[in-house]
């Protein structure tokens, strides 16, 4: 699972050699550790003329987090992040000044720095100029992210339905993107609505304190990382996996101080049993992470019924059935996060069954979101790209190397990167993020 190339180009003689030869040099990404500063340096906040007030409000929020906030580009700084606030820009020409201001500091952006756009989503009825301006941010951000180096990333917060820049969910999203928790999220624009509890402490190390979470497929890999990350953030975790995976499952449960529930998610009564376990043993159910998934790769021409049906049963139908039970139970503030995949967005040869199931996940997530919103809940999906796991380590060397270097960050992600995104989406402060698909792919070149 180790990425020897990334290690080599970042240390000793091989680092010098790689530099001289002009080889691509993927960075060692900074990842979250409790107590570390939010950003690697001061944060510059720039805005177009009309968005100054929103920029001020955001700057105030950052100051409250003890971030060193600057409003003017200067030469003597290694920037930790640059925030481009264009929420009120109305015409494409409005963006020239702030965008070029961002460009002027990119050379002094610190390794693992962040560029963040804050804009509004185009809506029906926008004037053509307004729609052009708002949609333009999309292409700008995705291109800018590809220009960043040294582990720096670019992401966007896209406000919907009149969400304020200093609303809890907006700030929670800004904080996530600025932080090391979003290390492998790059080139993504996340839509954030106005929902969200006021007065949430966004600086806490335990945003999930008191919450009860269920993670399926928790025996190993990404599932185990999700369980650990949710537990780190304060949640009590019910770890679910098939009985045959019980050995790894009990290890995960004991690592996170949770409980192990040996259960096949495709069982008819899986939802009821999960609900009963969470309520009887832990008194509540606040978060469900649909992580359990299988691969049965085959070209469609060679695929047998079992290969298609098992993938759809585990990856998609089980989630649907469990969600039905959860919805019927009418839980307050339930956060569901499902694992999609970049294969489900961009397609992948030999994975028609898997991609169908994962695109299906995106479909049901969008449809479930409004049903949960009524009770203060959310349904979101996370789409991992190439993540370094037991599963991907079995990919042949050459294919694996190509897959690793294709994203902008030129490396695979770690299971914890997926887990951090899920922990964010599962947190109460992220209530304004609903029905979204967040890619954790290092800005993989395929798809959106």
């Amino acid at each position, binding site marked *: 699972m180790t990425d020897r190339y990334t290690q080599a180009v970042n240390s000793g003689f091989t680092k010098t050699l790689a530099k001289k030869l002009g080889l691509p040099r993927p960075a060692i990404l900074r990842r979250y550790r409790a107590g570390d500063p939010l950003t690697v340096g001061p944060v510059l906040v720039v805005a177009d003329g009309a968005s100054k007030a929103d920029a001020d409000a955001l700057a105030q929020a950052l100051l409250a987090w003890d971030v060193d906030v600057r409003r003017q580009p200067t030469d003597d700084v290694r920037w930790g992040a640059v925030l481009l606030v264009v929420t009120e820009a109305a015409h494409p020409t409005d963006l020239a000044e702030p965008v070029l201001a961002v460009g002027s500091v990119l050379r002094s952006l610190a390794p693992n720095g962040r560029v963040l756009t804050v804009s509004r989503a185009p809506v029906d009825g926008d004037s053509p100029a307004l729609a052009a301006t708002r949609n333009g941010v999309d292409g700008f951000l995705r291109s800018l992210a590809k220009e960043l180096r040294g582990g720096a990333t670019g992401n966007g917060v896209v406000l919907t339905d009149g969400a304020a820049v200093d609303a809890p969910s907006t700030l929670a999203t800004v904080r996530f993107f600025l932080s090391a928790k979003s290390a492998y999220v790059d080139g993504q624009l996340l839509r954030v609505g106005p929902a969200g509890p006021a007065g949430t402490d966004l600086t806490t190390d335990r945003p999930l304190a008191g919450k009860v979470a269920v993670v399926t497929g928790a025996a190993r890999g990404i599932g185990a990382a999700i369980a650990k990350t949710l537990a780190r953030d304060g949640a009590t975790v019910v770890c679910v996996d098939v009985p*045959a995976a*019980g*050995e790894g499952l*009990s290890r995960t449960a004991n690592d996170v101080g949770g*409980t192990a529930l040996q259960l096949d998610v495709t069982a008819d009564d899986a939802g009821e049993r999960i609900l009963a376990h969470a309520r009887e043993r832990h008194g509540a159910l606040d978060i469900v992470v649909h992580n359990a998934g299988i691969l049965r790769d085959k070209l469609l021409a060679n695929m047998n019924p079992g290969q298609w049906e098992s993938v759809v049963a585990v990856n998609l139908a089980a989630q649907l059935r469990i969600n039905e039970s959860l919805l019927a139970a009418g839980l307050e503030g339930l956060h569901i996060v499902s694992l999609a995949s970049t294969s489900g967005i961009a397609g992948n040869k030999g994975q028609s069954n898997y991609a169908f199931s994962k695109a299906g996940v995106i479909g049901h997530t969008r449809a479930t979101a409004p049903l949960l919103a009524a009770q203060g809940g959310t349904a979101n999906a996370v789409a991992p790209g190439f993540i370094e796991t037991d599963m991907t380590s079995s990919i042949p060397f050459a294919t694996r190397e190509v897959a690793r270097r294709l994203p902008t960050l030129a490396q695979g992600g770690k299971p914890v990167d997926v887990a951090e995104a899920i922990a964010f989406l599962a947190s109460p402060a992220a209530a304004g993020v609903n029905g979204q698909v967040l890619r954790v792919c290092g800005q993989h070149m395929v798809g959106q």
Partner: protein
Amino acid sequence: MATRQKTSAPAAGGAAAQPQTVRDAVVVGGNRIPFSRAGKKYADASNQEMFTAALEGLVARFGLQGERLGEVVGGAVLKHSRDFNLIRESVLGSSLSPATPAFDLQQACATGLEATINVANKIRLGQIESGVAGGSDTVSDAPIAVSEGLRRALLEAQHAKTWQARAKALAALRPGDLKPLTPATDEPRTGLSMGEHQAITTARWGIAREAQDEIALASHQHLAAAWDAGFFDDLVTPFRGLTRDDNLRADTSIEKLASLKPVFGRSLETPPTMTAGNSTPLTDGASTVLLGSREWAESHDLPVLARFVDAETAAVDFVHGHEGLLMAPVHAVPRLLARNGLTLDDIDFFEIHEAFASTVLTTLAAWEDVDYGKNELGLSGAFGTVDRAKINVNGSSLAAGHPFAATGGRIVATAAKLVAQRAAETGRPARALISVCAAGGLGATAVVESV
């Protein structure tokens, strides 16, 4: 049933300690690793590894990480001398609080059940609130001892003060002394193996080969069905890649069993009937059961499967007397049921450990025999008849295998879940009788009841 009764009144004068009361001990759940035939998947797993794995699965199932339990009690029959603190060492290697006390006990094949009785009694007396009972055994990783001659010589040499004395001690060694001793399960007082002993009992009761094979077949079929129905989903945690008991032969048939050659009782006058198919194989494995007071279970939001009602042990004179080696439970059960005002008709499930298929059959035959009831059990007639459909309904040791000390925990957890399921289905209380025979003419029995 009453949950509390005073056993002593407070003494006058206020000087006496608080009065003691007896309360219920309940079975919360269990966990074992799949049992594996000797020399297979667990060939190089130690008792400590296996018991720790079973314990870790239990901790994970019930969220007991960092919990200080009242006591963990268990043991192993085949045990290395270095494992003098087997259970305590396993606790230290587990996710339980290191402040959880533990001790080893051993009662041959009844070890696991005796451990359960012990923990339940401590809970009932209020000495502890919670505890784990269990056991582990490995035939694959069994201790190998040196011969008596070599052992004596080594000890003498170690104690010698001069090199001459040391040389003299070692010079006494003979080539034959260098042969290692493998552990034997033969009865020390008779020199007969357990199988040979049971062959005598089987012949005495005239148990037919076909009847034994039918018991074996049922064991495999019942255990396979229970696995398929998910009965063990919350009773077993896989270990070392093994996800089911690997002795289980779901596809065995009466014809296959009938084709096996008898291995025990070949020197008897009657035709031998006991084969590898209707005798338990040597097996590796470990099991645990979680018990607690009702209050402890409730305060930890834990389920309760059954109440541990009572237990009785017995021993028989198989050396000088005429009783069979494995017949002790036959004597224990009538006493146990009488003390609790129960009869065989009050029992919904009979968990009779299948040391051999014929153990079950000789037990039933003895209970049905009028003379035996009068002369051996001191009853007015036959003890009674057991409905065959109530015996080992989810399989037993013939199919699962029998890692000696681990069998008790397997049976207690299975019995507790069976009565809980039955009570949930019918809305009426259900009871299970557990009977485990053991080497040395020992036997342990117990009753669990739905709550």
